[in-house]
């Protein structure tokens, strides 16, 4: 046995362990940095070629957008496909992003445009039938059968609204955007968006009263 090899092996192992530790520490610190970075800055970093920033954006927005798409599509598989399209489009449009503009309405505009195109292609008719193909998510907290039934009615009633009224209601009351932000996403005037929300509210209330 060559005793001279023992120290060099140990040094190599130590060095390797240090490398692993260093990489983990760098990754951890980067993850922490990303977590504290604004959406706009993350998108700027991604446009500049930092792939980690995209992961951070996905972590932040993936679940939010999946919920938005599921609430409108009622089908989890279609929502998943559209989510993939949304992030692919964000990736392709990274050079267009202006960091001085808020990112959240920007990415929701992408999602809404893809959603509308999806509806244009497949139509909305199947959604109107209550209970047909409906999947309630376990996190929704609709444990009671009666509540579940009402939730289905609300979904079906929402699906019958014209696109513009439905957009105003969903984006404002479910996604939490202010009316000016909704106006920016749908490309309409603030007053027009409020009128759509008013009318949508009335139609929805009338339908649910029946």
């Amino acid at each position, binding site marked *: 046995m060559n005793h001279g090899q023992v120290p060099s092996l140990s040094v190599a192992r130590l060095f390797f362990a240090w490398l692993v530790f260093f990489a983990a520490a760098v990754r951890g610190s980067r993850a922490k940095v990303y977590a504290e970075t604004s959406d706009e800055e993350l998108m700027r970093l991604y446009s500049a070629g930092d792939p980690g920033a995209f992961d951070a954006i996905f972590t932040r927005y993936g*679940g939010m957008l*999946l919920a938005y798409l599921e609430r409108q599509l009622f089908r989890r598989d279609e929502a998943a496909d559209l989510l993939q399209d949304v992030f*692919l489009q964000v990736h392709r449009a990274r050079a267009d992003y202006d960091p001085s503009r808020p990112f959240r309405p920007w990415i929701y505009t992408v999602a809404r445009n893809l959603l509308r195109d999806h509806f244009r292609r497949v139509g909305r008719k199947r959604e109107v039938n209550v209970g047909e193909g409906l999947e309630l998510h376990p996190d*929704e907290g609709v444990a009671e059968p009666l509540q579940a039934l009402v*939730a289905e009615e609300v979904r079906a009633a929402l699906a019958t609204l014209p696109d513009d009224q439905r957009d105003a209601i969903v984006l404002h009351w479910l996604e*939490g955007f202010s009316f000016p932000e909704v106006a920016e996403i749908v490309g309409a005037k603030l007053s027009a968006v409020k009128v759509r*929300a008013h009318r949508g509210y009335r139609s929805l209330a009338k339908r649910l009263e029946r």
Partner: protein
Amino acid sequence: MRRQEDTQDPQRPPHLDLLGAGPRPVPEDLAARVRDAVTEDRGLLARLRALPTRGREALAAVVVLALSVAVLLATPRHDLSGYPGFRMSLVLGALAVLGLIALRASLRPLHRPSLSPRRRTALALAALATPLVLAVLPDVYSGAALHAQVTSSVLDAAWRCLVFGVVVGAPFLLAALLLDRSGLRLRPHFLFAGAAAALTGNFALQLHCPITDPLHLVLGHASVVLPFLVLEAFVRRRA
């Protein structure tokens, strides 16, 4: 009524809470799919599509310009020097402006709100009607003498021009297909790319064909849009 709706904050619709709020957990396989899709989006095509929108529009405009210059150099109309400059500018200007608007609509990025249905319809109708209107404008110049030299049959001449216009317009459609970030999968994008291609074909025909007979212009020039409309309908049906 509308004034009241404008000023008041709308009430919250009933039972919306039942639909659930907040994010959904993203399954790991879906997250992996998204990352794979983004990672695999590389190569020349991906780089073209990732260009800023201004760059993509400029490239598409260069394609139109190159096609027009090629037609002007290879097969210019025989009466180019004698044709009234004002009418030529009017026709080319109208087709160019409308073509540019259609081009921009076809490459419109998804992070901008989509055009309203009213604007979409107006643009589609304008793209359809403008070549027709230009075809039936009162004649300011008689190209009829040239008609007999070019061909003996109205239908034959119209057919040749129709094919010429479609052949010149098709490369633009291909360019739009490469430059659009959704590969023209979105319906309005394909429609407007087809309209821009047809207007490119009309632009080229104006530089190529000396016949000024309105019937020929309607059958051979304005109808260039029809094959593109048929293609759009076919693609839409298959999607």
